[in-house]
């Protein structure tokens, strides 16, 4: 058991540092928060730079534009880019961290050839249409219908909380293809071209005042059957493979970002009780970083441990704790969202961490039942 990075890892780190030092000062200024066209252009431009320099798709297969590098280098990439304050994945989030990995794991060769290189180059932006007004935590109860008509599915229904819905080229879409079987057994996973007729996107305003996500209305949208990933009615399993592919690293950038926030907050913290609380938060984040390294080691040995189930639960709570602390530290400086640093905005943003991608209650159910083997709740 050790924490040593290999020589090759350190070479990778050194090269990346040099590249970041050259590249970052040349970036254009960030666009306004609600100018989605400009945001898309800016985020995908960064992705293109990463791709051209060989830093895109570090864990993806080489034949589809990835680098097939060991997970340790993925961690180094996250460490270094966050430390250097490089841009975050932004609008590329769903493509790089969710849809792409799903296609890597379950797509046909043709689907892989078509989409993966474009996602890596920043040419294709994805959004996610899983949740519905009536199906959030109980996602498998979803009702958006897809009826087979020759080479097409005719899709009708409503999706909600669709992040980046207003600028996505493709959506990951979960639909019900068989209404007559148990709820998990009748779901399929489709790639939805967002420019098809019958799709309406209505932005929703978040607590930040911006429109990070949208409602999606689908009215007899004709989606080619060739857009299905995995078998018909096997969509629930397809949805769940992503986690194992990501080796539990999907949320790591959030974690590294939080460590940066701790460093930014530190000089403002004078009260001894606040400093103690800051020490506490830093210790937790260090520990979660160590747990990530453990998860990565275990999955690269082919024996994923229980830790991967726990990361999201742990870091989202710590991040909110840190957010609380920053408001106490700021006192009345905190009455303006963009007044002093990014702390207030972060406090608001992190309210979503215990809700999105499975609420903390649902995560606790999963840990309790799948990790500890406690009995399920009666239905």
């Amino acid at each position, binding site marked *: *058991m*050790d*924490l*040593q*990075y*290999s020589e090759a*890892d350190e070479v990778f780190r050194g090269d990346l540092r040099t590249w970041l030092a050259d590249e970052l000062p040349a970036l254009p200024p960030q666009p306004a928060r609600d100018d989605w066209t400009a945001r898309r252009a800016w985020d995908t431009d960064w992705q293109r730079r990463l791709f051209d320099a060989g830093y895109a798709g570090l864990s993806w297969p080489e034949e589809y534009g990835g680098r097939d590098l060991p997970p*340790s280098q993925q961690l180094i990439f996250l460490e270094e880019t966050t430390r250097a304050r490089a841009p975050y994945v932004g609008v590329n989030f769903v493509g790089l961290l969710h849809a792409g990995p799903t296609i890597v794991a379950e797509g046909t060769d043709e689907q892989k050839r078509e989409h993966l290189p474009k996602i890596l180059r920043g040419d294709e932006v994805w959004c996610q249409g899983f949740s519905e007004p009536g199906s959030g935590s109980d996602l498998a109860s979803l009702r958006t219908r897809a009826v087979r008509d020759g080479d097409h599915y005719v899709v009708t229904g409503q999706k909600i909380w669709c992040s980046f819905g207003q600028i996505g080229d493709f959506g990951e879409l979960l639909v019900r293809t068989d209404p007559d079987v148990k709820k998990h057994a009748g779901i399929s996973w489709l790639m939805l071209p967002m420019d098809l007729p019958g799709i309406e996107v209505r932005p929703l305003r978040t607590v930040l005042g911006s429109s990070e996500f949208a409602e999606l209305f689908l009215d007899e949208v004709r989606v080619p059957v060739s857009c299905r990933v995995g078998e018909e009615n096997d969509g629930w399993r397809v949805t769940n493979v992503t986690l194992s592919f990501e080796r539990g690293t999907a949320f790591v950038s959030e974690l590294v970002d939080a460590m940066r926030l*701790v*460093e930014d907050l*530190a000089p403002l*913290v004078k009260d*001894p009780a606040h*400093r*103690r*609380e*800051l*020490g*506490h938060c*830093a*210790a*937790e984040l*260090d*520990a*979660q970083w*160590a*747990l990530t*390294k*453990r998860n*990565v*080691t*275990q999955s690269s*040995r082919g024996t994923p*441990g*229980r*830790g991967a189930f*726990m990361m999201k*639960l*742990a870091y989202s709570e710590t991040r909110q704790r840190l957010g609380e602390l920053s408001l106490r530290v700021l006192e009345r400086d905190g009455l303006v969202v963009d007044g002093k640093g990014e702390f207030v905005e972060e406090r608001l943003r992190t309210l979503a961490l215990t809700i999105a991608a499975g609420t903390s*209650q649902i*995560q*606790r*159910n999963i*840990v*309790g*039942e799948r*990790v*500890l*083997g*406690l*009995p*399920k*709740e*009666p239905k």
Partner: protein
Amino acid sequence: MNFDLSDDQVALRDGIRSLLEGKIPMSRVREGFDRSMFDELTNAGVFSLRVDGFGWADAAIVYEELGRALVPGPLVWSFGRDGITGGLDLTVGGTRYVEHLDSLDALLVLDHTSISTADPSSLAGSPADWPLDPLTPVTEAASLPALTAVGDADALGALRAQGALLTAAYLVGMADALTDLSVAYAKDREQFGRPIGSFQAVKHLCADMVVRTEVARASMYAAACVLDDPSTGDLSRALSGAKLLANEAAITNGKSATQVHGGMGFTWEVDVHLYLKRAWVLDTHFGSIDTHADTVAATL
């Protein structure tokens, strides 16, 4: 980077675990620490791991098992020493209680800058009638005996580092045992016609226990690796984080385990209180949750 137990370390862990299950089961733990227990641990090589060529990570793995089994005694102070060794840390507030005084062959006394030894037999006094932890007898050291300086500030730093690591490891083992006790009870005990572990209010307590334990364990292993190879991290920050989180995990899991056990959790018979009381005792050893949080903050 290979941040998980190697095959040898798994064998080491399994070996000490089965040894403890066989020789020091809870029935014997409840009788308290004694010399024969110490001799058995000595023969098993527990205290001589470092001189026998093992690393700090290996020692941490062994101490985690000692904590899981709640083996009593001054086990951390005795690490790497001859004979049963106790410790008195003068930098900690409150009454100067010496633990396990009647069993001690040697006593280390720590202040802010150095290590001294004292002859434990020169300390008069009788053990308190009602110690917080029934398995940790304490005797008030009203006046200090003659001290012999044996270590400078560097030696003190090294001793505090090893003490923080091994105590953290022991506490992680305790937090793990408390989770296991609670999960087993939650599967077994039925109310309203079903196991209480099917109720979310109970299930979520258990889920938080295991998450807390895994996070603390990762932190503790990281500290052990940094102690083995200081080039891989900030040692003081790593050790403080580990001790802080391990102590917090053991205390919080102790409280949650009490809750999961209902009325049984408040009985002498169920083991939970023995763990919780030890976790409180260990918060006064090698830095408390609060002082370690301050240490981490000072690195920022």
